[in-house]
């Protein structure tokens, strides 16, 4: 029964507010006395996911469940979807437009980093329907 559910809207094309959901989750994890190394992994993975939704999908939703032993994060969007997930998971591969790369985003490390920093990682995507990333980090 001991679990906590949080939901966040991630606004599309808003780089100023991007990161606010992961900042909120970090602050929640700190109140639980979570190991800083775990917080860091969650922060990086979730922030990358938020940025992905901002850049590629016009926003989305982040659903966060904190259980006794782990945190599960679902990042769901109704964006353009990913045609070749295997390619998208490769480091350095990016479809971000130049204007976004000039802002320091879109280096092609988003999905690979999300996978690297999580203990469980799943990505489902359909072209023209959207993408859902589900990841878990254990405490």
């Amino acid at each position, binding site marked *: 029964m*001991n*679990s*906590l*559910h*949080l939901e966040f809207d991630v606004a599309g094309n808003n780089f100023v507010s991007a*990161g606010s959901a*992961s*900042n909120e989750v*970090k*602050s*929640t994890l*700190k*109140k*639980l*006395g979570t190991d*800083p*190394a775990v*917080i*860091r992994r969650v*922060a*990086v993975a979730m*922030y990358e996911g938020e940025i992905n939704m901002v850049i590629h999908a016009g926003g989305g939703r982040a659903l966060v469940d*904190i259980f*006794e032993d782990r945190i599960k994060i679902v990042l769901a969007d109704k964006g353009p979807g990913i045609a070749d997930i295997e390619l998208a998971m490769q480091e350095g591969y990016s479809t971000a437009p130049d204007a976004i790369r000039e802002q320091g985003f879109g280096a092609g490390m988003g999905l690979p*980093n999300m996978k690297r920093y999580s203990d469980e990682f799943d990505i489902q995507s359909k072209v023209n329907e959207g993408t859902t990333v589900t990841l878990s980090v254990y*405490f």
Partner: protein
Amino acid sequence: MDKSLHTVMLDPAKCKGCVSCMKRCPTEAIRVRNGKATVLYERCIGCAECVRVCPHQAKLPAYDSFDIINNYKYKIALPAPSLYGQFQNLDSIDRVLNGLLMIGFDDVFEVSSAAELITEATKKIIEEGKIKKPIISSACPAVVELIIMGYHGLKDHIIDTLAPVDVAARLARERAIKNGIPEEDIGVFFISPCPAKVFALKTGMGLKKPCVDGVLSTSEVYLKLTAVMDKITELKPMAKSGASGVYWASSSGEAIGTGLTRYLAADGMENVVTVLKDMENGKLNYIDFVELNACTSGCVGGVLNIENPFVARARLRLLRQKLPKAENSIESEGKPLDFYRWEEVPETKDVFRLDENRLLALQKLDEIEKLLATLPLIDCGSCGAPSCKAFAEDVVNGVVDKNGCVRKNENN
């Protein structure tokens, strides 16, 4: 914690119980109880935002009265470089230093001289490559406190250099002893721009025991100095620091001194918090050195100063133009690198944790979220907590009654 070591105090007669300070506090360390602001000192980082923002001057920064120098026979002043920016048309830093001798000090050791040594130590420590990048400056004690309270994951990024004032204090004391002054007669006093330094020096941040005997306020010393400075006809040459050391008073001065190109300098509490959050998210991995100052424009923005930070900063820029690049070096000082480093690493503080037991903490979080859903989420502060969330936490922690929300039913 010793009560006398508080960074800010309240004048209850002046406090109107408004929410200005409470809303501004970066660690949510203030509550308004019974119509007066109260500080949860275990959360206070000494940034003095509350002092700055109080419209009624009810928040008082803590520092020692000037008279305490008279407890010692041989009095040494350690002026912060920000002090030099307080005076209009200052022709030479020597005028300030000579002035300090006239108002009662027997010797002066510029903190900016020690800052140059710390700059060199910083370069050497970065070359060693043992500290995680981006490396965070340890110079602003409010920032270090903030990290050990709220950003535990970034603690290993803080460079373990002592504050320039610590090094100045030690070197000044050594010099006095070498000149035959009995150790018990020596009193070493920092002239501080901010109350965070008062707290850090009294508790001895990074040190086994504090190394100054008192911390004076820039504004109090300023008034004494202006009374004598213009009367000095013959200036004794005393200044021993270059532009690099004096630059430490202004934001980015410390970072520029390291010669690193991949640096970031942020000043002002809100900006510091933004940068720390970005660092946690892994956004600044290409940066080598991060200089963070709680006060706007750096130490010139400290609340114990007289002049506004922008004017002081401009004056210091003009003064620096007359100075050589740097005047102090670790080699000529002859001390090992360890002399410039922390003796002990400040420990993290668990002030935001809801419960020692993680399951109970999770349960509390769940209760907080449920209560929050019934609150107006306007963060008006009328209940005495800085935000609806903070109020919900206080309720769940049993500190206040859940009926304390005064605007609960307005929009329902």
